[in-house]
């Protein structure tokens, strides 16, 4: 499969601050790529560079085989959807949709045809004569997506499009965007800080921090095998539990205080040396409760019911950690339980390099 968007050695500085550092990213034809990261990680800047709204300092951007590094945004075969919707307030929905086509002097009958098609797809036919101020947030975002559709964009760029919507609408539009991608098959690049959006929508996720891509993988891989501590901590809600201790190579185990955890079932990528500091990471759902009274007992310190499941907080060597159990279970504060770690599914990192080992 060929690449739809190629970013080569991209650097972008804002004043003296380096926002993006020598960044490479290839996005395949028809792929849904999500750029995920905390605010200030450079994900929106990267999107703006791809769109041609920021002039980059170094590197190349190639879209659909076309070197567009210095081309105007309108010549890049892109459509963009913004967090603030960015609908032209003085124009009706119809005029908003057709603005780009009118700017390029498209014949009227073709404009009409395209608007009909897009508005049907997004179910905004009844809204065509309204002003943006008469629309709800969800409707506005549909119109904004329609504006990209009408332009026959090859690549869709989404800049946190759902962040201004309430939770219910967000889930609804997320579903629609995914459906749109399924039906159209266009390449889409989607910026978000919301990991649920990233996990549900993406073919591949690029997790970014400080202008550098930390991991570029499928959502499954990113969730199950995070390549470093940052990714492990950033992805997952409730987040992964971490314990810092030493690796004992004689009995292949992790030691923390007086406790030992056997790591025979863990597949090391690089076996650490004896007594090196490692970070043991385990997701709350990879800890199970057993009622073996010979095992170490933990007292339940806090219970957070979340509906479908419940989070209970225990502590191990004074480090609080959470365990995800079924919502229907009936544990009470102060109950004593014993637990098992699913060693096959944990992640172990080198403390110094913070990389997965």
């Amino acid at each position, binding site marked *: 499969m060929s690449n739809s968007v190629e970013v080569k050695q991209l650097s972008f500085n804002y004043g003296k601050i380096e926002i993006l550092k020598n960044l490479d990213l290839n996005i395949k034809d028809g792929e849904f790529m999500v750029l995920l990261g905390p605010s200030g990680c450079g994900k929106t800047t990267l999107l703006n560079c791809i769109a041609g709204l920021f002039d980059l300092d170094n590197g190349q951007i190639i879209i659909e085989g076309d070197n567009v590094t210095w081309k105007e*945004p*309108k010549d890049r075969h892109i459509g963009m959807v913004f967090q*603030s919707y960015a609908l032209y307030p003085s124009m009706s929905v119809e005029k908003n949709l057709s*603005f*780009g086509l009118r700017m390029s002097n498209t014949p009227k009958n073709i404009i009409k045809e395209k608007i009909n098609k897009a508005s049907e797809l997004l179910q905004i036919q009844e809204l065509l004569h309204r002003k943006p101020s008469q629309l709800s947030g969800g409707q506005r975002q549909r119109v904004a997506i329609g504006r990209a559709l009408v332009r026959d964009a090859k690549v869709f760029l989404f800049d946190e499009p759902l962040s201004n919507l309430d939770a219910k609408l967000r889930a609804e539009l997320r579903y629609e965007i995914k459906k749109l991608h399924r039906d159209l098959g266009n390449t889409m690049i989607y910026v978000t800080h919301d990991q649920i959006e990233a996990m549900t929508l993406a073919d591949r996720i690029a997790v970014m921090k400080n202008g550098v891509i930390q991991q570029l993988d499928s959502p499954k891989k990113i969730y199950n095998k995070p390549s470093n501590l940052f990714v492990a901590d950033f992805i997952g809600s409730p987040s992964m539990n971490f314990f810092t201790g030493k690796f004992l190579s004689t009995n292949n185990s992790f030691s923390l205080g007086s406790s030992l955890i056997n790591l025979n079932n863990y597949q090391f990528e690089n076996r650490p040396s004896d007594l090196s500091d490692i970070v043991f990471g385990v997701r709350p759902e990879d800890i199970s409760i057993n009622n073996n009274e010979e095992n170490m007992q933990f007292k339940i310190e806090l219970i957070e019911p979340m509906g479908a499941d419940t989070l209970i907080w225990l502590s191990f060597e004074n480090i609080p950690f959470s365990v995800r159990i079924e919502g229907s279970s009936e544990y009470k504060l102060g109950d004593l339980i014993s637990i098992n770690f699913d060693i096959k599914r944990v992640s172990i990192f080198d403390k110094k390099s913070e990389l997965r080992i």
Partner: protein
Amino acid sequence: MQKQIIEAKGPRPKHLTIGRIGLYCFIVMCALFFLMPLYVMIITSLKDMDEIRSGNLLYIPQTLSFYSWPKAWSEACTGFVCEGLRPGLINSLKITIPSVIVSVSLGAINGYALAFWRFKGAYFFFGLCLFGAFIPYQVMVYPLLKIENAIGIYSSLPGIILVHTIFGMPILTLIFRNFYASLPIDLFKAARIDGGNFLKIFFYVIIPMSTPITIVAIILQVTGIWNDFLLGLIFAGRDNQPMTVQLNNIVQVDFGVAEYNVDMAATILTSMIPLAVYFLSGRWFVRGIAAGAIKG
């Protein structure tokens, strides 16, 4: 079962307290104080000279006399010509209308460029504009006079229009830039992706959103230019002297008797346009000043 009525404890707080009444009295007195000059001007313009000489400044006229208004309008002597203020009004219109149109348009484009097309040194340029807004323009009168003389438009209509445009530029650029900087930048980005260039985005996207701030700019410029005396006196030339200059000539008579009623009528006539602008657009002015980000 009957529904029980629950009442708040204690008496309902009174809306009209002594403090309130005092406040209203103060406000009414302030209003009367500021209306006083206008009142005196109007009644004086409706008195005849005998009554004015008798010295009862605040009394309403015993006999209404409309003699002063037509005289101020078309007969009073401004210097050696005795045609009243009429030619001055026409001159002022000829100066104000083009000056306002040109300066507001340029100010809007400047502000738009500074807010959205961030070129290198845009901040420096903006700082320069800010600085320019605070330079007293007397400093620039003589150099400007020399320049206009050199290019041959000194003492003419284009000459005075150019001067007003130049002096309006810093403040207009400033208010337009600040207004545009408060608009969501995403709108501009969307317009660029949709294929707008510098002027297309300005005309199709930005101008339709600029109504409130344009009205503010127009009010500022109309009153500023209409009330100008110094620049009109220096740059407009003898044939294009604005109303303010002619009003001065009427009031400062060197010969004959000072006709206060005519002076008052002439003054009211001269201030008619700025007053009308304020009354008709005050609502817009407040709205424009208060307008923050426009919601989409």
